[in-house]
C-alpha cells in the first residue's frame, strides 16, 4: 500500500511563488504542503547571488539567496510543511473533486498526497540553442545563461575563459558582469533586436562598466569548433535577415544563451490544464484558477515576470483567492473574457468576474515613452491611464476595483501609442 497524506492545499514548487503562496494559505489555517525537487527552498533565487531583489516585497534590497531564505522563513513560520528533494510524478483529478499527486522522494519513497486545491508554482525554464536553430557544430562550451550561473554560483566552476553572450536579457547581462568578476573575458553581447531585452541599468552596470560591446541588430550565424567552442561568426541584420557578406569572427571558448524563458507546464498539461499560447502558462480566471477546478497557478509558471517581487505578490494574491474558494466564497471560472489587442502581447487573467477587485498583468510589444492603456467594455472606455515609459522587458500591472468592473461583457485592453517617441 502506498501511504497517503491529506492537506487542504498542495503547492508545487518552493521558489518565490510557492513560498509566498504557502505562507498565506498556512497563515489562514489551511494545512499546506510545499513540494520541491531541490534539497533547499528558494528555487532559481538561490543561484541569483546579485543584489536588486526585494525592494518592493521585503522593503529592503536583497540578493537572491537572502530573498529565498526570508521567503522560506516566512512560509515555515506560518506553518507550511516543506517537502524537499521530492518530485511530483503524476497529478490527477479524482471523481470526488480532490486532487491526487504521486510524489517520489528519497526519504519517503512514493507517496500519495491528496488535497482540495493545488497551486502550480513550478516557475519557468530557459530557451536554449535548439529553440533558435543556430547553425554550426556541437562542441562543448555552449550553455544557457542560467546553467552557467548555476555552475559558477552554486558549484564554483568556471564555464570557460572567453565568452560571447547571445541575447541581451537580464540573466545574460548579469552573467556578463559575473563572468568578468570571475576573471573570464566577455567579448560581446549579441542581440537580434534594435534595442536591448534587459533593463537599461543592467546595460550600464553589467556591460558599460566593463566596456563590453553590445551588438544590436546582429545575429550569431555560426558556432565554430569541434571538441570545444573556438569562436562564433556574427552578422548584422537587415529587415531581420543576416547580412552574411558582412559577417565577422569573434574568438571565444564559451557561448551563453540568454534568449528568453518558457513557463514549465508539462505537469499542468498532463492533467488537462489548458495553456495560453501567448504566455505559455495556464489560462486562468481572476481567481488564478485554471480550467481544471481546484488547480491554481501563480508566478513564472503562469507568465514570465521581470521582478521577483511581483511573483511573490501575485502568489500571495492567488493564495487569497484559493482561501476564498476553499471557504466557498467564490466560484470557478468567470463571467466574461478578457482580451488584448494593439501592441499588447498578453493579459493575465483571461476571464474575470464583475463586482470583484482584479489585478491585470500585461506585456507590451512596443517601446514607447508616450502611450495610453485603455479598457473597453460594451462599447465604452471604462478605464484608461497614460504611461511615460513602456518597454517589452517590463510588465505592466493594473489593479481595477470592484466598482470599476460593475458590468458583464467582454473586456478589451489596448495600448495606444502617443505622438512622442
Amino acid at each position: 500500500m502506498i501511504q497517503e497524506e491529506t492537506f487542504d492545499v498542495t503547492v508545487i514548487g518552493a521558489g518565490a511563488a510557492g513560498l509566498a503562496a504557502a505562507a498565506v494559505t498556512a497563515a489562514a489555517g489551511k494545512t499546506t504542503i510545499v513540494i520541491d525537487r531541490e534539497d533547499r527552498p528558494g528555487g532559481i533565487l538561490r543561484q541569483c547571488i546579485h543584489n536588486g531583489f526585494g525592494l518592493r516585497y521585503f522593503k529592503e534590497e536583497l540578493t537572491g539567496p537572502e530573498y529565498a531564505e526570508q521567503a522560506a522563513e516566512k512560509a515555515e513560520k506560518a506553518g507550511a510543511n516543506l517537502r524537499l528533494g521530492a518530485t511530483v510524478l503524476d497529478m490527477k483529478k479524482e471523481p470526488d473533486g480532490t486532487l491526487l499527486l504521486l510524489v517520489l522522494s528519497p526519504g519517503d519513497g512514493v507517496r500519495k498526497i491528496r488535497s482540495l486545491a493545488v497551486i502550480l508554482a513550478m516557475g519557468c525554464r530557459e530557451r536554449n540553442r535548439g529553440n533558435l536553430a543556430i547553425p554550426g557544430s556541437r562542441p562543448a562550451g555552449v550553455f544557457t545563461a542560467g546553467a552557467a550561473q548555476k555552475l559558477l554560483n552554486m558549484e564554483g566552476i568556471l564555464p570557460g575563459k572567453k565568452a560571447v553572450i547571445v541575447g541581451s536579457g537580464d540573466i545574460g547581462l548579469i552573467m556578463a558582469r559575473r563572468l568578468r568578476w570571475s576573471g573570464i573575458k566577455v567579448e560581446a553581447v549579441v542581440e537580434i533586436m534594435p534595442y536591448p531585452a534587459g533593463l537599461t541599468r543592467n546595460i550600464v552596470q553589467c556591460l558599460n562598466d566593463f566596456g563590453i560591446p553590445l551588438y544590436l541588430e546582429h545575429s550569431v550565424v555560426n558556432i565554430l569548433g569541434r571538441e570545444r567552442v573556438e569562436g562564433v561568426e556574427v552578422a548584422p541584420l537587415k529587415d531581420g535577415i543576416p547580412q552574411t557578406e558582412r559577417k565577422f569572427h569573434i574568438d571565444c571558448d564559451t557561448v551563453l544563451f540568454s534568449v528568453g524563458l518558457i513557463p514549465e507546464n508539462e505537469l499542468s498539461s498532463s492533467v488537462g490544464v489548458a495553456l495560453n499560447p501567448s504566455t505559455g502558462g495556464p489560462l486562468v480566471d481572476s481567481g488564478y484558477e485554471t480550467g481544471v477546478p481546484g488547480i491554481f497557478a501563480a508566478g513564472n509558471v503562469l507568465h514570465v515576470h521581470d521582478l521577483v517581487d511581483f511573483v511573490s505578490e501575485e502568489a500571495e494574491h492567488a493564495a487569497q483567492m484559493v482561501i476564498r474558494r476553499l471557504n466557498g466564497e467564490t466560484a470557478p471560472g468567470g463571467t466574461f473574457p478578457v482580451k488584448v489587442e494593439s501592441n499588447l502581447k498578453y493579459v493575465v487573467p483571461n476571464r474575470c468576474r464583475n463586482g470583484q477587485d482584479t489585478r491585470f498583468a500585461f506585456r507590451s510589444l512596443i517601446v514607447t515613452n508616450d502611450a495610453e492603456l485603455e479598457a473597453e467594455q460594451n462599447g465604452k472606455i471604462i478605464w484608461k491611464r497614460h504611461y511615460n515609459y513602456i518597454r517589452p522587458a517590463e510588465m505592466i500591472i493594473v489593479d481595477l476595483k470592484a466598482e470599476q468592473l460593475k458590468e458583464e461583457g467582454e473586456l478589451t485592453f489596448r495600448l495606444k501609442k502617443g505622438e512622442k517617441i
Partner: protein
Amino acid sequence: MKKELICIRCPIGCRLSAEWKGDFEELNISGNRCPRGAEYAKQELRDPRRIVTAVVPCNSVLQPCIPVRTDRELPKHLIDRLLNILYRSRVEIPVRKGDIFIENFENSNANVIFSSTITR
C-alpha cells in the same frame, strides 16, 4: 566639462547630462525625473561605487561555495582587490545570513557579509 550618464537607481534608467567647471564646481545635472538621479550623478562622477557580490569556497557538505555581498556600495577601484581576496579565501561553516566575513574592507566602511545560512 560635460558628461552623459544613465541613472541606475531604478529600472527607468533616466539619461542624465552633467555639466561642471574645474573640480566639480557648479555641478549641474539635468534629465533626471527624480532627485535620486541627481544624487546618483554626483556620486558617480566624483566616486563611483557598486555593491559587490561573489561566492567563496566553503567546507559545507551541501554546497561547494557560499554567496557573499558587500553591505554597502564599494568604491569601484577597490572591487578587483576585494574579489582577489575573496577568491583566495575559504569559509568555515557554520555561518548565518548577515554574519560579517570581512569587516570594513580597506576603510571603505563596507563589510562583506554572508548572503546565506549554511550550518552543515
